[in-house]
């Protein structure tokens, strides 16, 4: 498959009064054409910073690339000038933000906001741009688009606003679409509509999506592949089935078992103890070791490398080292593994 975007050994720090916050500590991933890659993790794990660094939206005054490169169309995005970056932003790579109220300009009719990227990036007249904008609004399912072009963001509901934001981001047929928690601020029913819309549109224009969220239900719904981030690193990456049915990293286990499924009985919910690591002073060794009941001595000493489970599945945990003891994952994870051919708990095909 064709690689659209490659992130290699990315390291990024913020210089603050308190010292250097190592927000991203060596992130590697590829994005293939037409796929949806979901990045999950708790707040502060570096998922938003990773994507904002791809878009170069971080403040230059405090954010500093320490190492690595972001390759897109043969160019390293970390090295581009602001001017060059402006030609890519909104055209080849565009972004949908979490809060549709604050990401739209409240003083500008939405029609002008949708035509803005068109007029900037494409050589078309205002009336042509208007036509395209109306088509876009129709595409995202907005009734009476001609009329609504003149209206302001406050005249729309939350779900409609997010549709407008999606229309803007799709205006120039981007190759990469970054969606940073696009449905977190929305209700479940509206969320379901927006997710369906995004999947539909992806099929139509064959764009690649990086989808950031902390809702594992949403991940299961939209993703082809999943990257799990913790403490500024990717700790596990694989196809959606591999991550949900054959997870290997203790942090992924914790995430999956701390969410009650609709048939979880009254048993106590598994809670990951403790709090995320302080990236001002990242812990030595495996950042998750202090919260993990599976931690071994080596976890306190050395950072685990990636171990390969399949061609598409990797996890950074010493538990996968040939010399590591076999451990039992939490019960709910074993239940999941029973459904996955190739895992050691597989119980034959149920369906």
């Amino acid at each position: 498959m064709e690689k659209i975007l490659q992130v290699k050994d990315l390291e990024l720090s913020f210089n603050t009064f308190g010292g250097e916050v190592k927000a991203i500590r060596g992130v590697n991933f590829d994005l293939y054409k037409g796929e949806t890659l979901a990045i999950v993790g708790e707040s502060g794990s570096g998922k938003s910073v990773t994507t904002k660094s791809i878009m170069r939206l971080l403040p230059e005054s405090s954010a500093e690339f320490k190492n690595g490169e972001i390759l897109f169309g043969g160019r390293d995005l970390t090295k581009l000038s602001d001017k060059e970056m402006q030609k890519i932003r909104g055209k080849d790579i565009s972004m949908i933000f979490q809060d549709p109220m604050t990401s739209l300009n409240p003083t500008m009719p939405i029609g002008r906001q949708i035509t803005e990227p068109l007029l900037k990036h494409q050589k078309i007249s205002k009336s042509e741009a208007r036509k395209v904008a109306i088509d876009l609004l129709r595409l995202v399912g907005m009734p009476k688009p001609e009329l609504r072009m003149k209206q302001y963001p406050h005249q729309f509901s939350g779900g409609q606003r997010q549709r407008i934001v999606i229309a803007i981001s799709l205006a120039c047929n981007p190759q990469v679409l970054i969606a940073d928690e696009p449905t977190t601020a929305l209700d479940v029913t509206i969320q379901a509509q927006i997710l369906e819309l995004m999947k539909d549109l992806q099929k139509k224009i064959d764009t690649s999506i990086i989808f950031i969220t902390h809702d594992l239900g949403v991940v299961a719904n939209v993703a082809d592949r999943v990257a799990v981030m913790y403490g500024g690193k990717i700790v596990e990456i694989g196809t959606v089935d591999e991550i949900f049915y054959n997870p290997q990293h203790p942090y992924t286990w914790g995430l999956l078992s701390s969410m009650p499924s609709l048939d979880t009985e009254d048993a106590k919910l598994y809670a990951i103890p403790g709090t995320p690591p302080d990236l001002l002073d990242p812990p030595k060794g495996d950042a998750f070791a202090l919260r993990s009941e599976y931690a071994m001595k080596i976890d306190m000493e050395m950072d685990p490398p990636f171990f390969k489970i399949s061609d598409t599945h990797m996890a950074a945990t010493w538990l996968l080292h040939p010399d590591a003891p076999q451990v039992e994952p939490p019960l709910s994870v074993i239940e999941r593994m029973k459904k996955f051919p190739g895992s050691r708990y597989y119980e034959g095909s149920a369906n």
Partner: protein
Amino acid sequence: MAEKLLEIRNLKQHFNVGKANEVKAVDGISFDIYKGETLGLVGESGCGKSTTGRSIIRLYDATDGEVLYEGENVHGKKSKKDLKKFNRKMQMIFQDPYASLNQRMKVMDIIAEGIDIHGLAKNSKEREKMVFDLLDTVGLNKEHANRYPHEFSGGQRQRLGIARALAVDPDFIIADEPISALDVSIQAQVVNLLKELQEEKGLTYLFIAHDLSMVKYISDRIAVMYFGKMVELAPADDLYNNPMHPYTQSLLSAIPLPDPNYERNRVRKSYDPASHNYAEGEDVRMREITPGHFVDCSEREFEALKAGSLKV
């Protein structure tokens, strides 16, 4: 759990009454809350679930209807002394752990505020001990008492909110989306804490949320609201396995589950209020279909649902 702790009778909460922009946030809902149970209240934003909680605890003066706490009306004219009595029995945990703690007060004073108002501690030594005990109960320690809220993480702040609610030894706690602002890994910690406290102290909860899988996990019974009305009320398992009102069905079909196989085969239902085809003046109200399972329906729908559920 047959004993009723709270009875809500035809509660109405309208805003901007008499003006053009009158909002009927809560429009005549009735339900009971039993001693020791957790009642989950779900619905989309703007359906009036938070307003219901706030009217029950008298943060708003109800437009109409009654809230009976152990048989006594909470609303209506009350002397300061009577009000104090209710305030001790009912407490609230808020959604936003950042906005609901006074940044300029130390944890000690935040938690002890209720103790001071109700005069529960005889001297400062006892007050201190009570606060330390409360911190211990919610999984923090006494060193935290001299800190300010900004020194805590979101999950820890929510624990402080819980400690503050517990300070006056209440029987009934309204938790208004207590975990929505927290990370997934921290949500489980807070939910477990709430469950433990319930077992220990026999607390009764009204748990307001829009995250349905968490609600199902913590609740004994669940009520679904839609545009200021209650549309369905049933035991938690019953509601999930056999949702009867079309709105509940559409809500359930919209929750994404952490299970890719399930997600690939999901069929989403949408709800159109016009689909009921109610005749003018038709008597639509909550009716009991099976024991404990109430649905907002007309006489005609009631018969159909009853016939349908008999087959199951």
